[in-house]
């Protein structure tokens, strides 16, 4: 009867040998020596460990090759990042520069809201290896280093949030002109005209027809990206005033959202952050519907007569002709 055990024992080495020799297509080869990433030499053991962590948490979407084409990726509404590009949306560095490790940590631990990028519970102790492995996918990291961090100035509006929101509304529509070609507007045309004239001295005489909707913009990721409608969409990078400040100040890498830091004074950036935050608070509330209704029902607006008519009408926007 012993003979019946024989096939089993015969199979064993065969089985183990064949089992061990399959490697996922496209995955980086085994690491043999240290790799310099972002100016730091990373040990091969750390990268191999990073590969394990990556495979456990990231692989279904971002894929073995880091190309954002994992098994589960197809059909995702916000496509998973192609990590080979070395372009990242959310980081506290000027848009287009490489993020700092703290930015990776924030994105991995807190996720990107409204996407399949959830807040993963990768243990703190394993995060660094994972981040270095993620960097390995992008050749940029072997020659460049992370950008200078954009440090948030202290919020100058503490205790004066209502004032901040009011100022932010003006900056959003009048100074930063967010609604000109990207974001939806949240003010009447007359208001926007007035804000713009007040803050820049320029007269906005023409509006795009779909002023109250966002406009999909080209991006470096090969897909069009729709800027969020703050009263309807979740903000990917988080919706605390700090998160919003960061997104405004640093910009969104690879997209049309530029870096505003040093373009506008910090007071105004914070004011916009508070304003956007106030819009986010409307989400799924009757007030959002009311605002929408008010904008839809605003009286037909036509630009005031050319400048010779009068130079100092800085009154309310609805002081139309």
């Amino acid at each position, binding site marked *: 009867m012993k003979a019946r055990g024989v096939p089993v024992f015969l199979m064993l080495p065969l089985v183990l040998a064949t089992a061990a020799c399959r490697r996922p297509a496209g995955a980086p080869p085994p690491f043999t020596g240290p790799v310099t990433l972002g100016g730091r030499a990373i040990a091969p053991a750390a990268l191999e460990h990073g590969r394990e962590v990556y495979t456990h948490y990231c692989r*279904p979407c971002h894929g073995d090759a880091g190309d954002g084409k994992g098994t*589960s990726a197809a*059909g995702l*509404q916000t496509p998973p990042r192609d990590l080979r590009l070395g372009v990242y949306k959310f980081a506290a560095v000027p848009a287009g520069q490489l993020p700092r490790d703290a930015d990776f940590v924030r994105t991995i631990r807190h996720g990107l809201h409204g996407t399949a990028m*959830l807040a993963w519970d990768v243990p703190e102790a394993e995060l660094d290896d994972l981040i270095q492995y993620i960097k390995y996918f992008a050749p940029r990291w072997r020659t460049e280093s992370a950008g200078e961090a954009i440090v948030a100035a202290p919020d100058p509006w503490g205790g004066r949030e209502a004032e901040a929101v009011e100022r932010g509304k003006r900056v959003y529509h009048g100074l930063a002109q967010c609604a000109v070609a990207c974001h939806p507007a949240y003010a009447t045309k007359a208001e926007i005209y007035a804000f713009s004239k007040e803050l820049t001295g320029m007269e906005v005489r023409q509006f795009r027809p779909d002023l109250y909707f966002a406009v*999909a913009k080209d991006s470096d990721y090969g897909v069009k990206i*729709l800027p969020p409608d703050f009263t309807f969409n979740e903000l990917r990078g988080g919706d605390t005033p700090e998160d919003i400040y960061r997104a405004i100040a640093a910009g969104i890498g690879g997209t049309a959202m530029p870096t505003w830091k040093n373009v506008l004074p910090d007071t105004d950036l914070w004011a916009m952050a508070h304003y956007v935050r106030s819009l986010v608070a409307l989400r799924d509330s009757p007030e959002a519907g009311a605002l929408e209704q008010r904008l839809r029902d605003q009286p037909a607006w036509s630009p005031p007569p050319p400048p010779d008519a009068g130079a100092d009408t800085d009154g309310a926007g609805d002081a139309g002709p």
Partner: protein
Amino acid sequence: MHIVLPHDASLDGHLVDGVIGYLTLTTGLAFLAVLVFLLIAIVFHRERAGRTRAHHTHGNRPRDRALTFAVALVMFVAIDVTLVARTAGELSGRFWRYPDGDPNALRVEVTARQWSWTFRTAGPDGRFGTGDDVVTLGELDVPVGRPIYLKLRSRDVVHSLYLPSFRTKIDAIPGSTTRLWFQAQEAGRFEIGCAQHCGVSHYKMRGLLIARPEGEYHDWLARAETDSRLRGDAALPVAGEADGWDWETGR
């Protein structure tokens, strides 16, 4: 401690609760009887002074056998048979009577993947695969008081759409389509879970079901349709690849 069933927001959840309650009652009584019998046997029929010898019987007499079979049969009829009868009726009358021909039902295509849910409704025109399809990630918006008819597929591994507040769940399986229907009876936000182990982050696969009164749902749908259109969601591949989701025939 807080051990209650989750809040029931569904049309038929009380039937499930009824079955569970009925089972708890009947099996509880049966077990109580067993326990009493067991305790008597243990306490009084144990070896002690004055009781050194057991009653010698093999329990093979017709009387013994008749008694055993009778008790087993009574239990079977009292619990199992009534339960099966009740369940079969509820299944054919409610849970397995899918609203195939019901024009009022809201049809939703659910795609499960590691580790999120995608919900696609047909949008205002009522047809899938057109530009006004509404696609949402992790959030299922439904009207109150209408049958919600889900068809599910999975991109990668087996998942299970679990609606604790609606007392139901159904697996999403790669390569085939499963279905489920339920109806929300009240507005509110309810959690959607994944019940089938689907990998390391299985526990993260949480979704939200938002039930709105019909009017609010309408407003939401219009807004979401615009959003989906601007985003170009209609171009997204769905889990079923090219063959489409067959809403006409049963499965």
